[in-house]
């Protein structure tokens, strides 16, 4: 019996099953990663973060509910419980939304699926059905993983005299949270199906990428507010009509209804949750059925063509390149980097995610400021307003520069890098300078140009410009630091994710947010009203930048270009014999 079970996956099953199994496995692959199975390293790091943070969250919740259970009245306990249920339902939805957005390009079969499976005895319908089934299974696994832990944890840590620990409360929270997540997942699939059917074939890729970017930005911007939901427990007694249009609240209604609350308002919410879920699932299914023929023709017969440049844009670009990059090899590398960034959808998506994180931080900063008691409008220039204004260019440059630096590691058609390899002799510094110029012109310069007017509008001409100058210098320093040991032409080297433990990466970003955004913006906010302080700050930043820039060039002159990212050795030598 045991051997039969072990042998079962190895056997050949029906075509549909084999196709579903194939598509399911392909969800774990990425074109950006050159080593198969490397996702396990990243997933391992992610699980470690979730596991370690869940211990902290569990302890926090345990303490919170012990304190609530000490109160004789059950009302505070009940309200906190409802708020936490809403929090976990919304968090599950948010994470599922992000997951779906990251899988946006894989929601429907792609060109590679059709070409690689060509000639095999498969109807297009089979490919579509199998892809949909694999997608639902993959999303299902994610949704279960995201919602199972909180659904088990919350009832367990909150059990006490006001509510005893029981399976039903775990089950109802899990069911409502999972249904909410599935609702959003199906809604997004249906939305893409709608775009696929309504948009002209040549327009779809551009609009689809834009929608994907907007969704990621919106979901990341929403995360800080989701995290604030447990603090809104006092509002859980209200029954606002507006909440009837807020999907997470529908599923909170479903959760409460399953727990036995038969209030008409709750029943209405529960009914909406069920209708919405069924409608989204049906719409996704119909979207698939409706689009399968059109999608296949679009994918196979209408390959994506990048937008054509008009003559004046080309002339302007060539003139700018001639001025900024006088040497031809540097211009060549610059053109390659720019065109790849403009045309590679995956790279643009990664950049969108980084930009969205920056936007979320800025957005959250403004909302926090505006909801503070000491806020008297933007015309009153407080220290908090100055700090927030200075943090805008800093937030954007931090995540844009880090995003580009990360993007540069992700390869595009790795085998094509021979064109740089054979032309490397004597041109190495030109190629690296192209990366430097890209970072400046694609991250630092546009951020300063875009945020300059915002700073002037918030702080006035003098203070706005005074805040912008040190922010610009700080960005230049960050750029030098990020490129200090940069040793490759962007997009031409293999990539091994998970080299650094994910927890370490998160901590580095956390430290960068604290020092680069919070601390630097506080220093800038103090300096803008103090001329000597401002001059000293600018002088210090300028000196650091000049020093780093010189050191970076020295490192670049001595180093060599890398085309293959190798795994870190398991044991690092101390290298005591070296200086």
């Amino acid at each position, binding site marked *: 019996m045991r051997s039969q079970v072990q042998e079962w996956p190895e056997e050949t099953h029906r075509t549909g099953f084999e196709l579903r199994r194939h598509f399911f496995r392909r969800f774990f692959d990425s074109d950006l990663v050159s080593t198969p199975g490397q996702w396990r390293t990243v997933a391992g790091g992610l699980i470690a973060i979730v596991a370690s943070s869940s211990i902290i969250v569990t302890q926090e919740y345990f303490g919170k509910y012990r304190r609530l259970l000490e109160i004789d009245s059950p009302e505070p306990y009940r309200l906190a419980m409802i708020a936490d249920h809403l929090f976990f339902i919304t968090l599950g939805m948010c994470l599922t939304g992000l997951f779906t957005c990251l899988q946006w390009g894989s929601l429907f079969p792609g060109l590679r699926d059709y070409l690689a499976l060509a000639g095999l*005895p498969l109807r297009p319908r089979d490919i579509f059905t199998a892809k949909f089934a694999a997608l639902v299974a993959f999303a299902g696994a994610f949704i279960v993983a995201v919602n199972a832990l909180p659904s088990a944890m919350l009832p367990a840590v909150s059990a006490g005299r006001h509510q005893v620990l029981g399976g039903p409360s775990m089950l109802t929270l899990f069911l409502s949270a999972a249904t909410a997540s599935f609702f959003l997942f199906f809604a997004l699939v249906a939305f893409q199906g709608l775009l696929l059917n309504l948009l002209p074939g040549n327009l779809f890729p551009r609009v689809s990428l834009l929608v994907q970017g907007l969704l990621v930005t919106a979901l990341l911007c929403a995360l800080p507010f989701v995290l604030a939901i447990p603090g809104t427990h006092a509002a859980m007694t209200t029954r606002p009509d507006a909440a009837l249009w807020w999907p997470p609240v529908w599923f909170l209604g479903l959760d409460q209804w399953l727990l036995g609350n038969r209030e008409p308002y709750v029943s209405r919410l529960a009914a909406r949750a069920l209708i919405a879920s069924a409608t989204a699932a049906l719409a996704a299914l119909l979207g698939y059925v409706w689009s399968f023929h059109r999608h296949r023709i679009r994918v*196979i017969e209408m390959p994506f063509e990048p937008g054509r440049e008009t003559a004046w844009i080309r002339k302007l670009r060539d003139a700018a390149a001639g001025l900024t990059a006088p040497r031809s090899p540097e211009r060549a590398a610059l053109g390659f980097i720019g065109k790849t960034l403009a045309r590679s959808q995956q790279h643009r998506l990664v950049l969108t995610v980084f930009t969205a994180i920056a936007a979320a931080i800025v957005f959250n900063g403004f909302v926090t400021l505006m909801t503070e008691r000491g806020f008297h409008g933007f015309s009153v220039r407080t220290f908090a307003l100055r700090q927030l204004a200075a943090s805008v260019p800093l937030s954007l440059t931090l995540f844009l520069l880090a995003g580009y630096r990360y993007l540069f590691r992700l390869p595009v058609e790795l085998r094509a890098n021979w064109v740089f390899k054979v032309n490397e002799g004597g041109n190495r510094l030109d190629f690296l300078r192209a990366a430097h110029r890209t970072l400046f012109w694609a991250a630092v310069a546009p951020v300063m140009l875009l945020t300059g007017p915002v700073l002037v509008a918030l702080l006035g001409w003098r203070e706005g410009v005074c805040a912008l100058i040190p922010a610009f210098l700080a960005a230049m320093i960050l750029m030098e630091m990020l490129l200090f040991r940069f040793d490759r032409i962007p997009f031409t080297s293999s990539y091994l994710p998970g080299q650094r433990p994910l927890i370490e990466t998160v901590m580095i970003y956390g430290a960068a947010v604290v020092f680069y955004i919070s601390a630097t913006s506080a220093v800038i906010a103090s300096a803008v009203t103090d001329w000597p302080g401002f001059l000293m700050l600018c002088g210090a930043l300028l000196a650091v930048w000049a020093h780093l820039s010189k050191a970076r060039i020295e490192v670049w002159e001595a180093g060599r270009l890398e085309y293959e990212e190798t795994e870190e050795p398991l044991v690092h030598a101390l290298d005591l014999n070296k200086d």
Partner: protein
Amino acid sequence: MLEVHGLVKRYNRIPAVNGVSFTIAPGEVLGYLGPNGAGKSTTVKILTGLIEPTEGRILFGGQDVRNDFTAFQRRLGYVPEEAHLYPHLTGREYLQLVGRLRELPRRILDPRMDHLLRLFGLWEDRHSPLASYSKGMRQKILLSGALIHNPELLILDEPFSGLDVNTALMLRALLRGLAGAGKMIFYSSHLLEVVEKICSSVVILRKGEVAANGRVEQLRYMMSQASLEGVFAQLTQQGDPETRVREIMDAISA
């Protein structure tokens, strides 16, 4: 027998293939020739079911394949011109996928897969991802995948691309052997010498239309040419290569 009648495929009303007809009898190797853009790949895509024809019929064993295209696909093996493969699968996993999708039971699939991997010299690399395979290795894995279910009809689009000399010689002999065993082989290529050696008949396309269809020796005789190369150049109206060479030399030295 495979019979193609009046095949037409239009993209935005522009015909890529226009009224193409040919037949392949069991044991026959049909060479499908034409300059770039003549419509060879479009024909292959139609035959494999990647795209649907605007007009025309394809009969296999006297039956219209549209009645049950999946049944037709079960009986064909296909080697595409470009190696479209899932880069993260290993060579063995790819063959396993193809075999399973063709519903080959494990007791047949596993030994056959291993045999083919050894015979094509891929055994040592069977657990390496396809992304790391050379062009020739990819071609070999595609050939293995096309043969794994012992198809009646083979559709080969530039199957010699990237193969080393020994494997190319082996493949040439294999195609003859397969034809000898009664298989039908549709062989699309630019390699006129190979076509001349292994094909019993040829179809030459020009701008989506059939410029010639017949046995190689018959075409040579009709066109008064000593080789298929001469027939091809005459039918496809290629410019004088010497003139073109001079123009290129002028362009790069200007």
